[in-house]
């Protein structure tokens, strides 16, 4: 075997062996690419990942802005803001957000952040950028399918964005689009054309995430480099693999639910509709079941929560280990708990439906299975804390966001135990307690995972660092702000304050929370402003950030740091490196880190 030596920043030198490379076509030579094939219709996984990330950022700004608008209404229900009327016309007549507009805002806020930002923006970005780099492959199993995956997402984005501008407004029946409200155009403005746009957009989105997911699974299982056994993979790869499996198995079910809803809306069928009177008009539909939709929706909906969370779990595990300069504690337990979460994700959907008249006996099983999720979650938290324990911690921005993630994951996870109980759920369902729970554990926590990933892998993406000062401001304001926004909501939720209301000022039981609501709204605006600072940092640093000077700036073991600072299409200029050990040999045998490419020494045991 021919070998050549490459240096690894830290005195480590590893030999790179040639072997049967997966893709025979030689990417070594730099070939000229047109602007179109490099930046637009690119089949390079790294460029597609960046496309997903930047589209996700744009959506996050839109979705975040919507939350600022409805928080304005919730914090200041009596106030009038003439600028809103200038901007939104009839939707904010008299400078106050109309009820229809409020519903449209919360619906689109949920849809955008759950699907477009935390699904496509999170797993689309990091699966694409990291899979081939971390398993040692030239590109995805099918670069073309990967490109299609982005462009279907783009089409879905265009349709959803267009729906914001139609006369009757976008979908406004909540992000869960329960029929009959969503099925009947005469029921509300948002159930007219906006709802069709929503469904078409989601169908395109599902196609996009299926094309992506198939590719991720196939690539991870088939294109690992020599020596990269499954148990030598970094935990990011395991997490993304399970995410893709969840997506591939659950999104088709949502698609079938959505197709039936399209039938009901446009072809007059009665899958979900039965004996309905709308505004004095008796509808002919009979024999349908609205609960059927909820089953189909939540069979996706619950795994979707883990589709959002799992990549964050994986990235946080990797970043914690690198920046504690310690091996991850309990690698196999980490993989096992990801697997357990993946299985349980499919068995708990009915805990979203405890109050739909579900048989209480059946509910008991769903309670048990739901509470079981606490076990793998606790294993993960324990392992993260033991990884940090006595570590030589470097507080890089990525590391801070990872630690912040653990904090949020614990706080949000604990309230999950409350909500998983069907008896407590009778009181808590549809209150602000639910809002607080899922925003902390799914929303903000996954955002923290995403930020951690962006700060950690930005040098790999753009060959430059993000600005640290802005990063620290971003971290502290976001962490403190997230708690200040969502912690108080637990109290109002326990008091029974319901979701989806625009104004409680005439509601005696809840207008005591008015000051608290104003406080939450103020913090929400500050936190939003700091996210804009992050966006500025992101785009500024792409062009003006501090340049990366060594291939391995964090002293990490994984394969992506053996590529050149700005890797071309094909990732490694020479042969793909061979892997000899797992990804977590930190502080071993007096060495700070030992890259995966370094052969096992004479006195080492194999991993």
């Amino acid at each position: 075997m021919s070998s050549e030596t490459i240096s690894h920043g830290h005195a480590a030198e590893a030999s790179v062996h040639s072997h049967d490379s997966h893709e025979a076509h030689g990417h070594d030579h730099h070939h000229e690419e047109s602007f179109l094939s490099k930046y637009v219709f690119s089949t390079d996984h790294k460029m597609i990942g960046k496309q997903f990330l930047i589209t996700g950022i744009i959506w996050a700004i839109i979705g975040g802005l919507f939350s600022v608008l409805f928080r304005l209404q919730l914090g200041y229900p009596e106030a009038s803001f003439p600028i809103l009327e200038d901007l939104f016309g009839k939707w904010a007549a008299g400078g106050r957000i109309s009820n229809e507009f409020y519903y449209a805002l919360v619906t689109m806020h949920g849809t955008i952040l759950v699907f477009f930002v935390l699904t496509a923006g999170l797993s689309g970005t990091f699966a694409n950028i990291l899979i081939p780099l971390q398993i040692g492959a030239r590109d995805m199993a099918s670069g073309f399918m990967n490109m299609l995956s982005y462009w279907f997402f783009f089409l879905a984005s265009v349709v959803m964005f267009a729906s914001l501008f139609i006369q009757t407004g976008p979908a406004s029946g909540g992000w869960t689009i329960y029929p009959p409200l969503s099925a009947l155009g005469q029921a509300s403005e948002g159930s007219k054309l906006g709802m069709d746009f929503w469904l078409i957009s989601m169908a395109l989105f599902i196609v996009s995430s299926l094309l992506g997911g198939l590719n991720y699974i196939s690539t991870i299982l088939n294109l690992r480099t020599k020596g990269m056994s499954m148990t030598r993979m970094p935990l990011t790869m395991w997490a993304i693999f399970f995410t893709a499996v969840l997506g591939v198995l659950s999104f088709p079910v949502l698609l079938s639910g959505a197709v039936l809803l399209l039938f009901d809306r446009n072809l007059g069928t009665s899958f979900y509709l039965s004996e309905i009177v709308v505004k004095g008009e008796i509808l002919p539909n009979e024999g349908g079941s609205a609960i059927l939709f909820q089953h189909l929706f939540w069979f996706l909906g619950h795994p979707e929560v883990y589709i959002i969370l799992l990549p964050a779990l994986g990235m946080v595990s990797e970043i914690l280990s690198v920046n504690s300069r310690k091996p991850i504690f309990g690698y196999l337990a980490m993989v096992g708990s990801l697997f357990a979460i993946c299985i349980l994700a499919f068995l708990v959907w009915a805990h979203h439906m405890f109050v739909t008249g579900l048989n209480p006996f059946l509910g008991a099983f769903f309670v048990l299975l739901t509470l079981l999720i606490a076990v793998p979650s606790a294993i993960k938290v324990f392992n993260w804390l033991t990884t940090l324990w006595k570590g030589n911690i470097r507080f890089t921005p990525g590391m801070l966001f990872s630690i912040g993630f653990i904090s949020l994951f614990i706080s949000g996870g604990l309230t999950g135990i409350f909500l998983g109980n069907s008896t407590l759920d009778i009181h808590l369902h549809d209150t602000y307690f639910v809002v607080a729970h899922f925003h902390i554990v799914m929303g903000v926590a996954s955002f923290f995972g995403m930020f951690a990933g962006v700060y950690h892998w930005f040098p790999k993406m753009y060959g430059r660092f993000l600005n640290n000062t802005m990063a620290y401001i971003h971290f502290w304001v976001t962490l403190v702000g997230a708690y200040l926004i969502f912690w108080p909501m637990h109290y109002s939720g326990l008091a029974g304050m319901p979701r989806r209301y625009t104004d409680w000022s005439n509601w005696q039981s809840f207008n005591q929370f008015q000051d608290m609501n104003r406080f939450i709204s103020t913090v929400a605006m500050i936190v939003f402003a700091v996210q804009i600072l992050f966006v500025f940092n992101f785009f500024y640093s792409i062009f003006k950030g501090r340049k990366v000077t060594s291939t391995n700036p964090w002293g990490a073991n994984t394969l992506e740091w053996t590529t050149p600072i700005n890797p071309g299409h094909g990732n490694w200029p020479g042969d793909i490196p061979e892997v000899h050990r797992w990804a977590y040999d930190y502080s071993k045998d007096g060495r700070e880190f030992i890259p995966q490419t370094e052969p096992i020494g004479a006195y080492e045991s194999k991993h």
Partner: protein
Amino acid sequence: MNQVISEQKRKIHPHKFTLWVAIGSILMMFAGLTSAYIVKRSQASWLMIEIPMMFWYSTATILASSVTVQLALKALKKREMINYRRLLVVTAVLGVLFIVLQIVGFRQFAAQDIRLVGAGSNASYSFLLAISGIHGVHVLGGVVALVVIAIRALNSSTRSYSSLPLEIAATYWHFVDALWIYLFIFFTWMK
């Protein structure tokens, strides 16, 4: 060293593997639809479905097409290119014929004054239409794949003897065939 090399032995082409995962995904969609059907069936105002004779003919058609696509694959491997092209076109035509027969079958409901969609329709027949329709879209996808392969085979400038594209298309074709058989038995059984 030998151990790591043996780990590298890949038995299946990544694209074929991707197809199998996709098949799993499509199966989940139909599992969702047929379980929705079962849930709905146990509720009030369900009508017994009478499957028209035409669906038997379409079933025979898609079964025959599975045989022809397999023969096409065999012909390709034996380099009998004329035979191969002919069988490929026959398979695609049978696929289109299947969809046409399905549509004719659904038109027969209209002749019996059974409404599949719109006012007065019953969810049981709507389900039949929706599920078969979604299956039909998947068959259509297979037809497109076969047509693309056929065009490549007929285009003399690009002469490729790789059987991989057809192997993938054939696996998919058998899958949509088996899926229809499952649905057909399901509809006959669970009326």
